[in-house]
């Protein structure tokens, strides 16, 4: 106990302490999440289903645990983690605390792709392939996310170098453009399509299954790997681009890597969950307030923090209005925004500003 307290207080071990603490918190939150839901299940039943349940006939609880709750809580963790870690990397890249994955157009592009698929339907020549028609919306959303960031990236690239300021402006422009296009689709949509669109834009991990999880995890894992790889150069970048270059940081490769990682991870996640805001912005800040600005810890810490946040928000979304469900995006903002303000105020008081 005393050692843990000492680790928490010592600035050298503090970030490591909080990453470990977050990992423990994530495990507890995942367990709590597995144990809560509209269907009141005791831990005995849950453990029984986990232990011997896969494929057992005649037990409704098994299907509930294995096919609804498990994929759902894992999707919550993976999606939240992806948003958190990409937010951290982009805040580092832009050297701007307001950056989040939405800034480079990946979420907006995903929304546009989904809107396209919802309103226009699956192209005729693809309609016959079962996997395409089943996953048309996530597939279109992923393509939309890739396309939007590709546009932003190519606009911001000049003579082989990514201009970060232009990247930001191009991101804002592509957000406005896709917003307009989504507006057109909303206008053209029929009643049923409109409801599907609004459901998608609210964001939910409720539809998660093993297939969608299998679609997300490889991209998120790859992105996490890339971002961990560039954590040290991100620290150098905090001193400015030219200084980072003089320090030998692979600045251009890092920019490309971060953009590609964010596009893949966030694109894959939003294509299954819809747009979930705020996690990507707030998770890195929360970690930095606890564990300081060193990216070697901020990157994994933001992943854990984001996953933790979204899991907690999803439990509340499920439990607040049983047997109905609140969209998780609403919960995230309702809880996260005031808490974030509180932290800002506390920080201000502490630093005397």
């Amino acid at each position, binding site marked *: 106990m005393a050692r843990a307290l000492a680790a928490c207080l010592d600035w050298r071990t503090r970030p490591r302490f909080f990453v470990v603490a977050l990992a423990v918190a994530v495990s507890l939150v995942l367990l709590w999440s597995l144990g809560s*839901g*509209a*269907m*009141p299940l005791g831990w005995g039943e849950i453990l029984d289903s*986990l*232990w*011997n*349940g*896969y*494929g057992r006939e005649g037990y*409704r609880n*098994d*299907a*509930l645990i*294995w*096919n*609804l*709750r*498990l*994929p759902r809580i894992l999707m919550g963790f993976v999606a939240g983690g992806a948003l958190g870690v990409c937010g951290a990397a982009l805040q580092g890249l832009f050297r701007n605390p307001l950056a989040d994955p939405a800034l480079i157009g990946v979420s907006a592009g995903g929304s546009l792709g989904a809107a396209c698929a919802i309103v226009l339907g699956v192209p005729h020549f693809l309609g016959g392939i079962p*996997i395409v028609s089943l996953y048309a919306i996530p597939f279109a959303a992923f393509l939309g996310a890739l396309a939007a960031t590709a546009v932003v990236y190519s606009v911001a690239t000049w003579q082989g170098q990514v201009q970060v300021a232009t990247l930001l402006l191009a991101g804002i422009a592509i957000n406005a453009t896709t917003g307009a296009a989504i507006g057109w689709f909303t*206008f053209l*949509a*029929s*009643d*049923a399509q*409109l*409801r*599907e669109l609004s*459901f998608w834009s609210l964001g939910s991990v*409720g*539809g998660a*299954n*093993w*297939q969608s*999880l*299998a679609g997300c995890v490889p991209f998120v894992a790859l992105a996490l790997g890339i971002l961990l790889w560039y954590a040290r150069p991100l620290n150098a970048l905090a001193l400015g681009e030219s200084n980072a270059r003089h320090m030998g940081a692979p600045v251009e490769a890092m920019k490309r890597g971060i953009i590609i990682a964010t596009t893949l991870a966030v694109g894959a996640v939003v294509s299954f969950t819809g747009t979930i805001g705020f996690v990507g912005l707030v998770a890195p800040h929360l970690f930095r307030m606890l564990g300081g600005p060193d990216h070697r810890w901020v990157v994994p810490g933001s992943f854990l923090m984001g996953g933790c946040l979204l899991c907690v928000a999803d439990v509340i979304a*499920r439990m607040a*209005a*049983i*047997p*109905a*469900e609140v*969209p998780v995006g609403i919960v995230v903002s309702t809880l996260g925004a005031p808490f974030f303000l509180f932290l800002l105020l506390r920080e201000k008081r502490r630093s005397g500003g």
Partner: protein
Amino acid sequence: MIQLFKSIFVGVLLAATGNGAAFGADSTPPVPKNPQRIVSVGGGVTETIYALGAEAALVAVDTSSTYPEAATKLPKCGYQRTLSAEGVASLKPDLIFLAGAAGPPTAIEQLGVLGIPNVRFSEEHSVEAAKAQILKIGTVLGREEKALELVRNIDQKMASLPTPSGARPKVIFVLSAAGSKLLVSGRGTAADAMIRLAGGENAADSFESYKPVSAEALAAMAPDAVLTTTRTQAQIADAGLEAALPGIGLTPAGKAHRVIVMDDLYLLGFGPRVGDAVADLAAQLHGTAASPGTLPSQAGQNGQPKQAGQVGQVGQAGQAAQ
């Protein structure tokens, strides 16, 4: 413990091969003979269950089930288009009735995965679909005769509609008028179908589904009557007709102050009262509205108390408008 790792391994493997639906998602479970715990999603469906006298087995309904009064006292499973699979499952139903609008698709799919049988209906807005829905529910609940009676009642009401003489009145259905932003129903909507059935013409038939309409467009549509729901009527009453529907003053409907107000589930639900609703609307459209006291009774036959206040209000509103 080894078992657990084995299960997880199997799960991951199944997920990786894209074949995770190991709990019989493909085979919808069979509908039970004598369901004891029914969850009903959709106002028209719930109404039918009550009209058939089978409400004893109802354990929960969705928020759109607002008629009869007793249905509003049952536990709610959320809005029909945003169901939660685990939430519905927690009510332990042995049968779920799903209106065509029920969703999202993932939740419906998950209910199948959980092994809960369901009966789904089409989202078509027609008298035929309404009758088919009643007969299907009657068959599932073992009340075929009562269902036939309800269908016969609808047929009677439809047959007794007066043959329209002269021009068909142009009607505009206002879905919402909040903040003078007008949402009007075009082709393919339930309101469009009702207006046609009642011998009217949808003034807004140049577009599909619900669209916002400007003051000038409203004036150009020149409706003879405004049709709206009790909920929207409250918005209109607060703001006044001209303020709520800018441009209405230039139309025949606005000049004659002709606003027909009906309960939204009654008008748009396509449930067992659809025949009455069409007759009611037709009477008000063609200026032969009966006085409130003699309006056709909606639910008198099946022993449910009819919503006298609601119907009377509709009649009065209709008359006042003329």
